C-alpha cells in the first residue's frame, strides 16, 4: 500500500525527521487559509497523487503571493496529472499540499528499501538529488552510496559514517545532522513495516540543515494488520475500482487491453496462461488469480468483473487444482451463467483436485457456451479461435 507525500511527512514528523512545514488542502480556499497560517512570502503548491514525476508533469508550482497560491491551487485541484509513473491515462488530483518555501543549497537523494539479495534493508544516498535517480544509478552507479543495515544490530555509527563520507560531506556539524536524519529514517522504515521510503530531494539549506522536501512511502501489505494507523491512510480513490472490488472477494485482478478474459488459479499460472495466449496469437484482456479459497461465489464475481470489459470476446478458465477444488469452480461457472449474462464463449480447462467430478458437473449442465479443453495448450488455442469468431 502506498500513501501520499503529506501523509509520509506526518509519519516523518512523528519520528523527528525534519521536513518543511505544510498543511493539506482540499479546495483553493483551504489552500489560501493554509498559506496564511504558514506565513512567509513564498509557498509551494503540490499535487497529491500516488506517483513520482509530479514536478515535470506540472503538479508542483511555486507561489510568490497569497493570490497566486489560490490561483495555482484551483488550477491543480481537478487536473489530470500525467507523469512517467501514472500511465498515459494520468491521475486526478484531489488534494494539494501547501508547503512553506525552502532555502535550497544542495539537493540529495535518500532512500530505504529491502535488498532482496542481502535480505536486509539498505540505505541509499546520492549527491544527485532532484534528478531521475534511476538514470543516475544506470549512468553513474558510483554516485549511489549503498549501506546495508542488519536488523539484528540496527543502525550504528559506522553506517552513518559510510553514508556521509560516501557523499563527501566534510563539515562535522553537517555530518552529525545527516547521520541523525538517516538513523531516524531507518527507524521509520523498520517500525512501520515499510516496503520503501524515498526522499528525492533531501535538501541542504543555506544554514546547513537537512530537510525532506519530498517523501514517498510504500508498506508491506502483509503487515498492515499490525498498523491500523497506516491502514487508515489508505486512499481508495488512488486504486482501480475493479481491482479493489476483486480484492474484496479474494481475487487478484489487473485489466489489460486484449480480447481474451482469463480466470486462473495462482499468479504464476495466470501469467503463464497469458503468455500462452499471446504465443498462440491472441491477446489477454486481464490477469485474474482466483486465489486458493475460490468457491462458487468468487468465481461468479470473477465472471462479472471480466465481462464488464466490453473488449472481451472469449473467456479462458484455466484451473490446476491443488488447494482449489475443481468441482467448486465448476459450480461457480454454473452459478455465474445464472447470475450474469455470459454472452461470450467460455473455454474451460480443469485439472488436478476433483477434476473428474468437475468435468461431469459441466457436462451434465449442458450449457452451449461452454467449451471444454483437455490441457493448457488446447484451451489457449480454443480461446484464441473463439475470440476470432472461429469455431
Amino acid at each position, binding site marked *: 500500500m502506498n500513501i501520499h507525500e503529506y501523509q509520509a511527512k506526518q509519519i516523518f514528523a512523528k519520528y523527528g525527521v525534519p521536513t518543511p512545514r505544510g498543511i493539506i488542502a482540499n479546495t483553493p480556499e483551504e489552500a489560501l487559509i493554509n498559506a496564511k497560517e504558514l506565513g512567509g512570502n513564498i509557498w509551494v503548491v503540490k499535487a497529491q497523487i500516488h506517483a513520482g514525476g509530479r514536478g515535470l508533469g506540472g503538479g508542483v508550482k511555486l507561489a510568490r503571493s497569497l493570490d497566486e497560491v489560490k490561483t495555482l491551487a484551483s488550477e491543480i485541484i481537478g487536473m489530470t496529472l500525467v507523469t512517467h509513473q501514472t500511465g498515459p491515462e494520468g491521475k486526478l488530483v484531489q488534494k494539494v499540499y501547501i508547503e512553506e518555501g525552502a532555502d535550497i543549497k544542495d539537493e540529495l537523494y535518500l532512500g530505504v528499501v529491502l535488498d532482496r539479495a542481502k535480505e536486509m534493508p539498505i540505505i541509499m544516498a546520492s549527491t544527485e538529488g532532484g534528478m531521475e535517480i534511476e538514470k543516475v544509478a544506470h549512468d553513474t552507479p558510483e554516485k549511489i552510496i549503498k549501506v546495508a543495515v542488519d536488523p539484528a544490530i540496527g543502525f550504528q555509527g559506522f553506517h552513518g559514517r559510510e553514508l556521509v563520507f560516501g557523499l563527501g560531506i566534510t563539515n562535522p556539524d553537517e555530518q552529525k545532522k545527516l547521520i541523525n536524519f538517516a538513523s531516524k529514517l531507518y527507524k521509520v522504515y523498520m517500525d512501520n513495516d515499510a516496503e520503501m521510503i524515498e526522499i528525492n530531494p533531501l535538501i541542504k539549506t543555506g544554514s546547513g540543515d537537512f530537510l525532506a522536501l519530498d517523501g514517498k512511502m510504500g508498506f508491506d501489505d502483509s503487515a498492515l494488520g499490525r498498523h491500523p494507523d497506516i491502514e487508515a491512510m489508505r486512499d481508495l480513490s488512488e486504486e482501480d475500482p475493479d481491482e479493489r472490488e476483486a480484492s474484496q472477494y479474494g481475487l487478484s485482478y489487473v485489466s489489460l487491453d486484449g480480447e481474451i478474459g482469463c480466470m486462473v488459479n495462482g499468479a504464476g499460472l495466470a501469467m503463464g496462461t497469458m*503468455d500462452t495466449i499471446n504465443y498462440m496469437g491472441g491477446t489477454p484482456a486481464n490477469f485474474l488469480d482466483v486465489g486458493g479459497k475460490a468457491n462458487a461465489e468468487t468465481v461468479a464475481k470473477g465472471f462479472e468483473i471480466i465481462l464488464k470489459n466490453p473488449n472481451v470476446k472469449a473467456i479462458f478458465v484455466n484451473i490446476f487444482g491443488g488447494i482449489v477444488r475443481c468441482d467448486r469452480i465448476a459450480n461457480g461457472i454454473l452459478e455465474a451463467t445464472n447470475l450474469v449474462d455470459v454472452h461470450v464463449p467460455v473455454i474451460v480447462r480443469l485439472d488436478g483436485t476433483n477434476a473428474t467430478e468437475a468435468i461431469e458437473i459441466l457436462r451434465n449442465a449442458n450449457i452451449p457456451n461452454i467449451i471444454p479443453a483437455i490441457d493448457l495448450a488446447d484451451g489457449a488455442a480454443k480461446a484464441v479461435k473463439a475470440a476470432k469468431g472461429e469455431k
Partner: protein
Amino acid sequence: MSILVNKDTKVIVQGFTGKEGTFHAEQCLAYGTKIVGGVTPNKGGQEHLGLPVFNTVNDAVKSTGATVSMIFVPPAFVGDAVMEAAEAGIELAVVITEGAPVRDMQMAKAYATKKGMKTIGPNCPGIITAEECKIGIMPGNIFKKGNIGLISKSGTLTYEGANQVCKEGFGISTAVGIGGDPIIGLSYKQLLPMFEADPETKAIVMIGEIGGDLEIQAAQFIKENITKPVVAFIAGQTAPKGKRMGHAGAIVSGSAGTAAEKMEALKAAGVTVVVSPAEIGKAVKEALSK
C-alpha cells in the same frame, strides 16, 4: 535417491490442530509421509490424527526425533515459528503460510541461517519426493516417480510442469516450490547443486517469474556448475509494467527483473528456454534425447 526428503524423513507439523494444518497433514499422511506429531501451544499431551501433540517444537523434536517441520501457523506467527524450529534443531522448515510480513521473515531467515537450518518458502506449495514423501499442499497424484528435478516459484506452475513431464512418460525425482515472496529460503542457486549431485535426477525443470533477480543468479550458476540439461520457463512475458511509486527497488537489484532479461540470461547459460508452460514437457523430452 532424491533431494532433501525421502520415505524415512520424520516430519512434525507446526499449527497441527488448525483447519489447514489438519487437512493437509491428513493428505500428507495418506500420501505416505512419515508425520510423527505436531505442535500447538496449550494442546500438548493431546492426540490429533492419532499422533502426539506438543506445546513446543523442542518437546516434539526430543520425543520424536523429527528433522523436518511443515509450518501452517497464521501469517503473524510465521517468523516466530521458523525461529522456534531453528532453535529446536530442526534441519528443514517448510513454510506453507501465505502473507507473512517481510520484516519477520528477514529476522527469521537470518536466525535460521545462523542455526544451520534450511527453509523452504514461505507462501509455497512445499516439497515432494514422488511416491515417498509429500510435505506441502500439492495434489500428490500428479507426481509420478522419475528422473526430473523441478524447482518453481509458482505453486500452480509446479503442478502444470510436473503434469506435463509425467504426460510425456517421464517422472519427478523431487519437486520444490520455493515461493515468490521478497524473502525466501532455499532458492534455485542452492537447489540446483543438490539436483546436480543426485544420481536419480537426469534433468532439471526450472520455473521462474518476473521480478527480482534470482533467475539471473541461477543462470550464472548453471553456466559454471551444472552439467545436467535444464529446461526453463519464465512467467510474465506479457505482464504489464506495474504502476509504481518509487524507483528504489529497481536500483537495488540493478535490473528490471523482466521476463525477457531472465530468458536471455538463461539461454546464454545453455538452458532450453520455452515461451509457454505448455511446451515444458516436450522440451524435457528433447533435452533428454540429445
